[in-house]
């Protein structure tokens, strides 16, 4: 009886240790060799690929299920602003850049659980076709809980962590071969509540 209890304890400790360490490792910032970083953005060059390792495949399944491979689409993700601070709905941000070297691109904002943020306007993103550009072809997206004049994505009234995804559909060969060489948009914090 005593021995059975001992082995049951070992099994339970191992179970929670194994699963806990797996969850911790997957949640940890994934900056291994398959991730390329540029400014606040990072991309996994093996997303969707059959060459993905066990950890990358699990991370993509959790936070980017049904991703396309990089020759079709590159997905850049940002959880922080340019200064390295986590993106929060309680703060206002400017996302500034110029057109990206791809057939089509978009910037989308997600809430803490990687789902779209509810808002009356049903506005969650801007893309190559619907963004309003400045006179010098640069664009500026406003991410804020309060309305802005143009290119406004509502961040909602609930304070939570935010995630940005920059999608490049049919990126140019140069971008595919060197994902960190692209001139990606800057994410600039303006003010917080």
């Amino acid at each position, binding site marked *: 009886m005593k021995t059975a209890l001992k082995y049951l304890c070992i099994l339970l400790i191992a179970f929670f240790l194994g699963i806990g360490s797996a969850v911790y490792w997957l949640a940890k910032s994934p900056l291994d060799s398959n991730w390329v970083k540029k400014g606040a953005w990072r991309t996994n060059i093996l997303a969707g690929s059959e060459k993905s390792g066990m950890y990358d495949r699990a991370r993509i399944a959790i936070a980017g299920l049904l991703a396309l491979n990089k020759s079709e689409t590159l997905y850049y993700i940002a959880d922080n602003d340019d200064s390295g601070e986590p993106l929060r709905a309680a703060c206002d941000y400017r996302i500034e850049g110029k057109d990206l070297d791809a057939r089509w691109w978009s910037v989308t904002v997600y809430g803490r659980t990687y789902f*779209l943020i509810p808002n009356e306007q049903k506005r969650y993103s801007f893309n190559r076709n619907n963004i309003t550009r400045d006179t010098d072809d640069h664009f500026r997206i406003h991410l804020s809980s309060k309305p802005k004049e143009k290119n406004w994505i509502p961040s909602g009234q609930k304070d939570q962590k935010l995630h940005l995804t920059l999608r490049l559909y049919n990126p140019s060969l140069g971008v595919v071969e060197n994902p960190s060489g692209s001139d990606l948009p800057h994410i600039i914090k303006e003010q917080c509540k």
Partner: protein
Amino acid sequence: MKVWMKSTVITLILAAIFHIVTVAIIPDVIMAFVSKKALHSLKASVNTAIHRPRITDDQETIVMPCPDLLYTICVYDVSQKPLRIKAPTPKDTYFSVAMYAANTDNFFVVNDRQLANDGREILLINKGASYSGSGNFRVVEAPTSKGIILCRTLITDENRMEDMIRIQHQVTIAEVQ
């Protein structure tokens, strides 16, 4: 070896096994869950195309959907019969057919430009299966008998939603008898 040391080693070995198994099965578990959820919530059956309306915050099935696309989803099972997919080749928007294995791998993708060059029809067969029928289509072998097909139609102009939906609905997926 002391008893406590033996217990510690056994615990660590078991923990490592639990760790590896957890990480390894997460993609398959999530895909199975998403497939089941999609079929249940959309009241659909396997091997049929489900044309989804534009994604908004109140009708999401998977994480990180792109709100600028119209999705057509099909939960496939080619263990018994192959599937024939007919895709549109729109001139003024992006369109793609992507196929995912049960472990989430994107094992095949083709976009509108490639479809226009190489033909609009795709035959999806089970791994190791063969198909002797004739026709002008490319044959794709699925690494797992079950998985998901996802078609993406880009909304290039929000004032032309009817046109975009018309393109989306040109996708047909059917079992080959």
